């Protein structure tokens, strides 16, 4: 077994997932990432898996490969997520299903398979990604916010179930960040959202990484089942 931390991050092809992969590599970790399509970048100490988090077999094979090469998983960040801004009355069922599949079922599968490896060493840090759209009840984001509400509840129950294995489970809930996820949202809607925050600016990747760094520290072994909202909501 190698003596460096192994960090698994989903949805690393671009955006915050890529940023977090680079962040943890800089900190000296071995990072294992995944996405449905291949990334157009590469990095030392980073391994990419072509895996869809909604495929049970793909997720199992990814962790099988990680276990065989490293024998451990220390940190899991469930970043893979999709969004679709739309009025509920105009939301196709297929869209609703896909959002729940990726954001919630994908998170469940990665947590389940990753925690199986973590429990063997009685240590693990799981960080799931929420959103301020949950407490803000944002119109147009019913399905996205609901899927993230499910992630929050799942994480809080998971925290109880995995505590005895030394695994903590927490959620960081970002404000909108300049990523593909909000590219289709009208500017004035983003402005109104930012206006409702205590700190009136869009989020930055570094804001998310900062909270994740806190959750995953070995010293944070008494912090679990928590949700930290960025921006002061």
């Amino acid at each position, binding site marked *: 077994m190698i003596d460096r931390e192994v960090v698994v991050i989903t949805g690393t092809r671009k955006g915050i997932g890529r940023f977090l992969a680079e962040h943890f590599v800089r900190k000296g970790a071995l990072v294992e990432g995944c996405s449905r399509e*291949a990334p157009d970048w590469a990095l030392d100490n980073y*391994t*990419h*898996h*072509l*895996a869809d988090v909604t495929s*049970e*077999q793909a997720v*199992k*094979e990814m962790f*099988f*490969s990680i*276990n*065989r*090469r490293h024998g451990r998983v220390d940190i899991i960040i469930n970043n893979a997520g999709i969004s679709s801004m739309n009025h509920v009355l105009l939301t196709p069922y297929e869209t609703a299903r896909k959002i729940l599949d990726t954001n919630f079922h994908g998170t469940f599968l990665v947590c389940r398979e990753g925690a*199986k*490896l973590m*429990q*063997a060493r009685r240590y693990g840090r799981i960080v799931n990604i929420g959103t301020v759209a949950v407490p803000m009840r944002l119109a147009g984001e019913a399905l996205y916010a609901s899927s993230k509400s499910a992630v929050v509840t799942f994480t809080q129950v998971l925290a109880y179930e995995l505590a*005895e294995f030394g695994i903590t489970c927490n959620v960081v809930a970002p404000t909108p960040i300049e990523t593909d996820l909000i590219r289709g949202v009208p500017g004035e809607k983003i402005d109104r959202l930012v206006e409702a925050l205590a700190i009136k600016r869009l989020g930055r990747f570094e804001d998310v990484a900062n909270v994740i760094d806190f959750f995953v520290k070995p010293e944070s072994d008494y912090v679990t089942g928590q949700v930290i909202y960025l921006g002061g909501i």
Partner: protein
Amino acid sequence: MVGEKETGVVDEEQLVSLVTSAVKDACGDRDIAVPEDLGPETKLFGAGGCLDSLSLVSLLVDIEQRLEQEFGAIVTIADDRAMSRRRSPFRTVRTLTDYIHVLLESRNDHDRS
């Protein structure tokens, strides 16, 4: 980029040996007395079983990992079929090994198709 997959064939005797070894470890981890005559008829879970629900969880996870490491077989033991059966496949070492055998067979059938 990785995406490799291994396959392996596991016989009944190997499965019983793998499961009984994992039961010993599961009992040891949770300070549960290992059944004296540990073998195919040993009751694992339910009436007269030696394991509580959390040690059963640990046992099933451990067995999945042993199947992966020793035979390259990637399976989910607590799958929908197992959880919806009227009689749980986790009652005894034998019912569990039989169920794992079914999983491995259906996996091989899937690989061949």
